[in-house]
C-alpha cells in the first residue's frame, strides 16, 4: 500500500488518461455551421441572446464532460474521505491550468472561454456521484469549479504558473554541466514566454471586466440591488485574477532570486535572467493598475502575494527603493508594523548608493486607501525626494508633477472611510528632514515651471504644508517612542 500514489496523483493520472476525450469535445464545436462566423467576430464576450440551434451541441458537450469526469474519478479509485472540499479545489486548480493551455486551431482567440460563450455554458451546473462521493461542478467563462456543498468562487482556482513551467521541479547542481545549463536557459525562456502570455491574459481579462462594468452602468438606476451584486462579483473576479497573476510573478521572482544568488552563471544565461527580471518587474507594475483605473480595492490575500514578490525582489536588489517603498506601503495597507527609518536614512544619504528600478507611484496609488493621512503624506514627500534625486536633469517636469498630483489626490477618490491608526514607525526628525527636502524641491519647481506644471507643483506643495494639527496627532500615534 505504501507504494500506491497519493489520491491527488491518481486523479491527475486519470485526467491524463482521459484528456483526449475532453479536448475532443472542446474541438467539436468547430463542426457547428455557425462557429466560423462566431469566431471571426469574437472578442471575448458572450452573445446577449442564447441561440437555439446550438442547444443539442450544448447538451451533448455537457453530457460528454460529465461522463469524462466520472471516468477520471473512477479510474483514480477514490474513497469518500479522499473527496474533501480542499481536495476538489486542488483538482479544480490543476484542471483550470490544463485548460488554460488548450487552444483550438492554434488560435489564441479560440480558447475554453470561446467554447463557453459559443455554447452558452456559463453558470451550467451539474451534480454527479462517484462511488460514495457526491459533488457538483460549475462551468463559467473563467474556468471550471468543483464543490461538495455547491459553493463556487466567482473566479475558479488556478495554480501558479510556476508549477507548469518547470520551476518547482527545477533541481540545481553545484557544478552545472552542459545539459544543466541548457535546461536552465530553456526554463528561463519558458518563463519569459509564459509571463508575456500571462500579461496578455491579464489585459484581455481586464478588458472583459471593464466592458462588463460599463454595461451595467444603467442598471444602477433601474435595479440598484442587482447592479450592486454584479459589481461585487466583478470585484471578486478582479481579486482572484490578480492573486493568480501576482502569485505567479512572486514565484518567478523567487526563482530569479534563487539563481541570482549563484556566483558562476554563464554570461548568456545571466543576460536572459536579467531580461526576465525586468519583464516580471514590468508585469508587476501592470498588476497594480486596477486601483488607479477602476478604483478597485485589492483584498488582503492579493496584498500578501504582493509582499511575497517584493521580498523576493529585495533578495537580489536590496538597494532598490521601488521595492523598499513598496514593502512599506503593502505592510501599512495590511495593518502590519513597518519601520520607515531605514528607508529615510537611505533617501537622505548619498543617492548613488541606492537604485530606483521603477516608478513607485503605482504601488503607492494601489494601496492609498489603506494609508492614514500621515502615512500618505510621508510617502508622497518621500516620492518627491526620491524622484528628484534620481531624475536627470534634476528637475521634476510637467509629467512627473502630474504624477505626484495624482498620487496626492488619489485617496479622496476611493469611497472608503479614512484610516486613523498607523503602525508605521518613523522618528520625527527623519520625517521633518524628508518633508523639508520635498518642500524645498517643490518650491524650486514652482519657480521654474509654468501653466499646468506650476498648478500641479502648487497643488502638491499645498498638500505637503496642509493640516499640521491632524498630522501631528497621527505622528504621535505612529511613533510611540
Amino acid at each position, binding site marked *: 500500500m505504501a507504494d500506491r500514489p497519493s489520491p491527488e496523483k491518481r486523479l491527475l493520472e486519470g485526467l491524463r488518461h482521459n484528456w483526449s476525450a475532453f479536448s475532443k469535445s472542446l474541438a467539436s464545436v468547430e463542426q457547428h455551421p455557425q462557429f466560423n462566423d462566431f469566431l471571426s467576430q469574437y472578442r471575448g464576450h458572450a452573445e446577449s441572446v442564447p441561440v437555439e440551434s446550438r442547444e443539442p451541441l450544448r447538451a451533448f458537450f455537457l453530457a460528454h464532460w460529465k461522463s469524462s469526469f466520472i471516468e477520471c474519478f473512477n479510474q483514480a479509485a477514490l474513497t469518500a474521505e479522499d473527496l474533501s472540499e480542499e481536495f476538489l479545489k486542488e483538482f479544480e486548480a490543476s484542471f483550470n*491550468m490544463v485548460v488554460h493551455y488548450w487552444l483550438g486551431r492554434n488560435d489564441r482567440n479560440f480558447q475554453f472561454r470561446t467554447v463557453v460563450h459559443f455554447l452558452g455554458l456559463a453558470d451550467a451546473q451539474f451534480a454527479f456521484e462517484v462511488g460514495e462521493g457526491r459533488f457538483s461542478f460549475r462551468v463559467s467563462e473563467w474556468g471550471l469549479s468543483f464543490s461538495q456543498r455547491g459553493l463556487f468562487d466567482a473566479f475558479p482556482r488556478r495554480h501558479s504558473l510556476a*508549477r507548469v513551467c518547470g520551476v518547482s521541479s527545477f533541481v540545481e547542481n553545484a557544478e552545472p554541466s552542459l545539459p544543466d545549463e541548457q535546461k536552465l*536557459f530553456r526554463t528561463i525562456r519558458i518563463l519569459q514566454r509564459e509571463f508575456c502570455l500571462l500579461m496578455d491574459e491579464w489585459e484581455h481579462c481586464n478588458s472583459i471586466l471593464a466592458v462588463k462594468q460599463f454595461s451595467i452602468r444603467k442598471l444602477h438606476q433601474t435595479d440598484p440591488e442587482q447592479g450592486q451584486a454584479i459589481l461585487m462579483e466583478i470585484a471578486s473576479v478582479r481579486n482572484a485574477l490578480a492573486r493568480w497573476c501576482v502569485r505567479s510573478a512572486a514565484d518567478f521572482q523567487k526563482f530569479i532570486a534563487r539563481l541570482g544568488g549563484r556566483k558562476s552563471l554563464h554570461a548568456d544565461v545571466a543576460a536572459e535572467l536579467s531580461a526576465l527580471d525586468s519583464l516580471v518587474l514590468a508585469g508587476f507594475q501592470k498588476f497594480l493598475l486596477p486601483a488607479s483605473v477602476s478604483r478597485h480595492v485589492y483584498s488582503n490575500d492579493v496584498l500578501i502575494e504582493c509582499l511575497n514578490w517584493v521580498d523576493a525582489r529585495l533578495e537580489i536588489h536590496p538597494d532598490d527603493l521601488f521595492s523598499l517603498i513598496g514593502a512599506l506601503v503593502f505592510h501599512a495597507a495590511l495593518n502590519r508594523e513597518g519601520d520607515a527609518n531605514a528607508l529615510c536614512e537611505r533617501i537622505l544619504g548619498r543617492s548613488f548608493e541606492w537604485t530606483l528600478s521603477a516608478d513607485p507611484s503605482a504601488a503607492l496609488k494601489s494601496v492609498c486607501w489603506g494609508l492614514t493621512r500621515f502615512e500618505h503624506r510621508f510617502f508622497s514627500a518621500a516620492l518627491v525626494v526620491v524622484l528628484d534625486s534620481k*531624475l536627470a536633469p534634476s528637475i521634476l517636469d510637467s509629467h512627473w508633477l502630474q504624477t505626484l498630483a495624482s498620487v496626492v489626490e488619489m485617496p479622496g477618490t476611493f469611497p472608503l472611510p479614512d484610516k486613523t491608526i498607523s503602525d508605521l514607525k518613523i522618528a520625527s526628525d527623519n520625517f521633518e528632514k524628508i518633508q523639508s527636502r520635498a518642500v524645498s524641491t517643490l518650491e524650486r519647481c514652482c519657480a521654474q515651471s509654468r501653466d499646468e506644471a506650476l498648478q500641479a507643483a502648487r497643488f502638491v506643495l499645498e498638500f505637503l504644508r496642509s493640516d499640521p494639527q491632524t498630522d501631528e496627532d497621527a505622528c504621535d500615534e505612529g511613533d510611540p517612542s
Partner: protein
Amino acid sequence: MSHQTLEPRRRAAVDIKLLRLELVPRGRTPCEQISHEWSPAQPTENLSPDAAAALLRVDIWAPQSVVRERYKKLQLRYPPEQFPERHVQLRPAFELLSEPVVRLNWFWQSGLIPNMTSTLQPTDSPLWNRDTSLNPMTPEDALNALLEARF
C-alpha cells in the same frame, strides 16, 4: 513578416498594436536598471526581429554571445569606415537581437507572442539550438509538469 516565427496574440491585439505602450519604458523614467537608451539612429518601428535576423544571418533567438560573435565577424568583413551604409543597417539589427530585453520589448509592442524555435546547430550554439528550442506549451505538457512538480 514571416508567420513562421510569430504567432498573433489575439486578433484584436494586432489591430491595437499602435496603442500598446512599451513594456519596459524608455525616456520618461527614472528607472536605472531597465531603461535602455535606444540609439536615435535605430529605426525600431520598421525593424522586426525577422528582418534583423536576416540581415545578420543569425537566429532570432540566438543567445547573446552568438549574436555578438557574428556581429564582430561582420564588422571585420565590412569595416564601418569602408562600408558605412551597410553598417547603418547592421548596427540596429545587432542592438535588437543582442539585448534580450529589447527583443522581448519588441514582441510585446508588436502584439505578437514569440514562437521560440531555432535552426541553429548544436555545434554553433551549445546552449540554444534546434534540439533545445521550445514548442508552444500544450495541455499535455502542463499535465505532465503538474504531475512532476507536485509529487
